[in-house]
């Protein structure tokens, strides 16, 4: 335990200097669940973001959301609202918060938290149905989340 606190402190200092990715447990949320700073310390890439959103093994956002700009990918779901014009409704920090931990913006939502690694019941080893081995990775990396945010920022009406 002591050791991990030590490593954490080291990562934090290093992070301040080099602006590396912030660990899921260290994300700073505002009172409303927004996240001001880039998780990776870098800007996102729009094209990668659209790939993450349409890829089943990554964000798979289209499983639940309709997005006109991604209509080339088949089968958009209807569980969540359409994301058209989403950048008019939310700031970048709010979008980052929704992606990082949707539950802080929408209590009880069915939308997964993409940058949370603990507090789950019976976490599995991916989609194998078997128990997770060791600590979980977040569903998306810090940079993938920034990429998605860069893409979402283009969705203006």
């Amino acid at each position, binding site marked *: 335990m002591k050791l991990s606190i030590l490593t954490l402190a080291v990562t934090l200092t290093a992070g301040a200097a080099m602006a590396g990715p912030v660990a899921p447990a260290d994300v700073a949320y505002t009172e409303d669940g927004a996240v001001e700073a880039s998780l990776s310390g870098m800007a996102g890439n729009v094209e990668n973001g659209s790939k993450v959103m349409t890829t089943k093994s990554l964000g798979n956002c289209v499983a639940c959301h309709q997005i006109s700009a991604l209509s080339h990918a088949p089968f958009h779901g209807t569980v969540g609202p359409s994301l058209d014009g989403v950048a008019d409704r939310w700031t970048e920090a709010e979008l980052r918060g929704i992606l990082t931990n949707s539950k802080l913006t929408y209590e009880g939502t069915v939308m*997964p*938290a993409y940058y949370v690694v603990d507090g789950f019941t019976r976490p*599995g080893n991916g989609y194998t*149905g078997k*128990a997770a081995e060791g600590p979980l990775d977040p569903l998306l990396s810090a940079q993938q989340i920034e990429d998605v945010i860069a893409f979402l920022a283009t969705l203006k009406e």
Partner: protein
Amino acid sequence: VSMPALAFADADDDTLVVNGEIEMITKAAAPAHLADTLDEVISGWHMRSDETQIMQADDFDNPGMIFVEQAMDDWNTVNGEKGKSCASCHGDVEESMTGVRAVYPKWNDSKETVYTMEMQINDCLTDGMGAEAWKKSGAKMARMEALISVQSRGMPMNVAIDGPAEATWELGKELYYTRTGQLDLSCASCHEENYGNHIRSDHLSQGQTNGFPVYRLKNAKLTTAHGRFKGCVRDTRAETYKPGSDEFIALELYVASRGNGLSVEAPSVRN
């Protein structure tokens, strides 16, 4: 974005009559225990495409019926040290098994626990016949359950949830609403809050079990309720429970009770 899906987002208004004679109740007033949650319970049949729906309307078109015929052979086949078949004790399946499927899982007085049909069949095999138990949710078990279910087709599901079964039912209810896995979703997240919506290409149903065992076009075989539960839990990125586990027995009772009033449809056809 073109969303043709929205045009049939809700359950359709089709009616299901099997072989031109068995009228299926595919929508019913929700049972009393769901009064605060749902107005109507709806068979998963309504969420399937017309082509899939039609396959279920005639036994000649229903690929699941091949397995029912195989189970008929099993029914009459002597198996085990005692030289008996199912028919030795139960006679004609069409008479002895009528109505059985509609009330399972049910409390077993002598065993003092909730029994699934599978548990009863395995008892009959081991104790009654001196034969080996069949694999839980395996192919032989699924087809025998289908044969027995066919004898109740059209009859409304009517599992008992009070009396001695109540504690198991409560456990099943708790499991139904427990979010699992890294996606943190419960059965209710998909089948109560979002039935009628699409998740990717899947049109979400209420997750009813009145059609089980179902024939799935995807893998060309029968799937038991426990098999389906396992797949759904896995899809939340969770460690699943095992078919035949206490958890799935409780969940089977609870989910079955959510479909009380819907006709037994097995073997239904699903994608």
